[in-house]
């Protein structure tokens, strides 16, 4: 039987309900970021750049857009011999419908897919985070420590620790306690949702649980405590570079605005650790005689006749004469008419903003226009 060292499983089924309109019809990992990416591109690209070419993408909530985006993984170079990206969705079977009840349950329900690959290690990732990480280094650490499980952790400011799952470790990085959102945190090492499991052991736990109380639904809440209770070796692998969970409209806006900075820690222009995405065919970006573009990121297919400052414009955005776009994110296919004012806003894919519209939010109260929404223009009576 063919054997691989590491299989990555990206959990991409989350709704991200705090992103409001932006996740009404698409899952959080499919939310556009940084002009030409979607959030899941970071995890997928990290896999490829770490030399992992077998990836399962577990989807559940509103998966259509995400499934289309990932496809066969070609955009990430995953459509290669002995590699591939596979979309894994819940399905109905003779045992009834199998909605994934939690992170661990999603892995359990895809055991047969994992067994087909026969991996030594399963790298479990979340499709929700923006970061560049070499999983190979974490795997080396896992092997060195002879761990049963290694949890990726990121130091967070201690006052923010109560928002996270916190790992308390000893001097050898061994995790001795896990606390979900502790009121009085003992450490500041937050779980990143990145796990490396020895597959044989994890499978044993999950299989045995099925014949018992079926309570291992979530890695943080159930599996880690079960491992700790049985004295398994769990280690924390500290990651200290840029990592961002864009869980809310404000944090998504903020992460995009940070991304504009050419000295940003993600260093997106570094060709040694590229972030790959689907690249639609588009004409060059056209900045006309009347345009004024500063401190902005622009993607191909854009046609700009207005003023753009401190903003990110995705593919195929049109901005008419006399319009102002400031401190905003404009997603792909958006048409902005003439003399429109947009400040502190996120404009969803394919929205239409008609002439003279005024859309001004505040730094802590970002205005959001949903996908395909239409703002301004003639009312039905005027048509």
């Amino acid at each position, binding site marked *: 039987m063919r054997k691989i060292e590491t299989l990555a499983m990206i959990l991409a089924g989350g709704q991200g309900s705090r992103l409001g309109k932006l996740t009404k019809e698409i899952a959080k990992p499919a939310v556009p970021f940084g002009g030409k990416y979607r959030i899941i591109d970071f995890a997928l690209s990290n896999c490829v750049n770490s030399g992992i070419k077998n990836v399962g993408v577990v989807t559940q909530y509103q998966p259509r857009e995400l499934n289309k985006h990932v496809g066969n993984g070609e955009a990430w170079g995953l459509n290669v011999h002995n590699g591939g990206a596979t979309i894994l969705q819940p399905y109905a079977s003779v045992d009834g419908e199998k909605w994934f009840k939690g992170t661990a349950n999603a892995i359990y329900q895809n055991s047969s897919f994992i067994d087909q690959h026969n991996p030594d290690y399963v790298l479990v990732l979340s499709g929700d985070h923006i970061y560049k990480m070499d999983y190979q280094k974490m795997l080396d650490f896992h092997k060195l420590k002879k761990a049963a499980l290694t949890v990726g952790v990121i130091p967070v400011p201690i006052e923010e620790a109560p928002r996270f799952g916190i790992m308390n470790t000893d001097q050898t990085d061994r995790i001795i306690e896990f606390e979900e959102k502790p009121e009085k945190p003992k450490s500041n090492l937050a779980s990143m949702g990145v796990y490396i499991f020895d597959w044989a052991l994890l499978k044993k736990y999950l299989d045995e649980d099925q014949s018992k109380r079926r309570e291992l639904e979530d890695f943080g809440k159930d599996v880690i405590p079960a491992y700790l209770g049985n004295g398994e070796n769990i280690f924390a692998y500290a990651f200290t570079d840029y990592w961002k969970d864009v869980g809310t409209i404000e944090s998504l806006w903020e992460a995009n605005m940070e991304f504009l900075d050419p000295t940003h820690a993600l260093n997106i222009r570094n060709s040694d650790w590229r972030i790959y995405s689907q690249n639609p065919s588009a004409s*060059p970006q056209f*900045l006309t005689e009347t345009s004024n573009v500063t401190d902005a*990121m622009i993607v191909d297919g854009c046609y700009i006749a207005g003023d753009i400052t401190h903003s990110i414009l995705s593919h195929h955005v049109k901005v008419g004469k006399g319009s102002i776009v400031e401190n905003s994110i404009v997603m792909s296919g958006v048409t902005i008419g003439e003399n429109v004012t947009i400040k502190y806003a996120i404009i969803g894919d394919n929205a239409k903003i008609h002439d003279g519209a005024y859309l001004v939010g505040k730094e802590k109260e970002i205005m959001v226009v949903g996908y395909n929404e239409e703002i301004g223009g003639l009312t039905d009576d005027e048509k």
Partner: protein
Amino acid sequence: MMKNKISAILNLKEDDSKLLPLTEKRSISSLPFGCRYRLIDFPFTSLHSAAIDSAAFFIAGNGRSLHDHIRSGASWGLDSSIGGGLFPHTETAIREAVEMSKADQINSFYHDQIHYVIRSKSEYVVMMGTKMLCNIDINALLRYHQEKKADVTVVYKNMVQSSCNASEDETYLLFEGQATDRITNLVSFDKLEADKDKAPVNMDIAIMTSKKFVELATQAGKSKLRSETMLLFKDHLDEITVIGYEYTGYLKNINSIQSYFEANMDMLNEKNYNALLTRGNSIITKVKNGAPTFYSKDAKVKNAQFASDCLVEGEVENSLIFRKVTIAKDAKINHSIVMQGSQIGSGSSLEYVILDKGVKIGEGVHLKGTADNVKVIKKNTVVEPERGVKA
């Protein structure tokens, strides 16, 4: 044979001598154009739009630069495992020279073309090149050809006579009479009637049935003709029905540095940009992963086009900037073309200049050409202020 299936023959042995040094290591077909394209993207996109999944191309040199761009042809749907594919024929110049000297033998490039067309099981063959830059709808051409029951249909564009220059390599169509589209001759510019305001320029694009193609190519091969599209039927215009199909979109003959420069600059005119690049299906090219282009707080840009992955901190006006170009603070670029990966140092200025790929312009370097004598800097040149151009 599959009904209405079209196969394609691309003649890419085009004369590039007036495009040197840009064509030193590449053919016209792989010339970079319009910030992110190569000229081959235009005929390939036309094939793709007409659902043509099979093409054979003939190129004089080894075609390395072209192969690097097109790879499997997947970007244009030319890698189908069922009935399609991309069939390269390289070093035709050498083979042509050798085989022309042998007697009583059909030239192998005709043999290759005939072989390809028969194997493709297509009902029709379309023949095109890359130096006549256009965005043509092949399905519309086929419908016209079928409706007119012609043996061969040739594509032309009516140019305003005063705008044409009597270039040697351009041919014009003579029609049977005012009201017909039957072609009676292919002539050079000076043979056109001077009192007419329109000049129907031949675009070197023709469509015919595979059967007719095999017949004409066999004949041409025996007569030792060079393999050019028009030579297939030029001497048979009284025996077979060859008609003209008028193209009304953007057209430019890319046969010199000057016309290459003008064609790029034409894209800064919205009408041309839309007609060539976004009409119908937008032009497909090999996509690259690059970051969005960043315009800094100091950037000053007017009437310019950019590809992705650039870092713009200087001034750019009336220019086209390809992928991965960095333009430092206080650099000024005007009326210029800057190809992929070039770096423009601070305090430098470019006016009427073409920078080939990977050129480095040092701090404070000033390069200036004129509108009718554009300065070209060769690939990977480093230009330093004191020492001038260094290869």
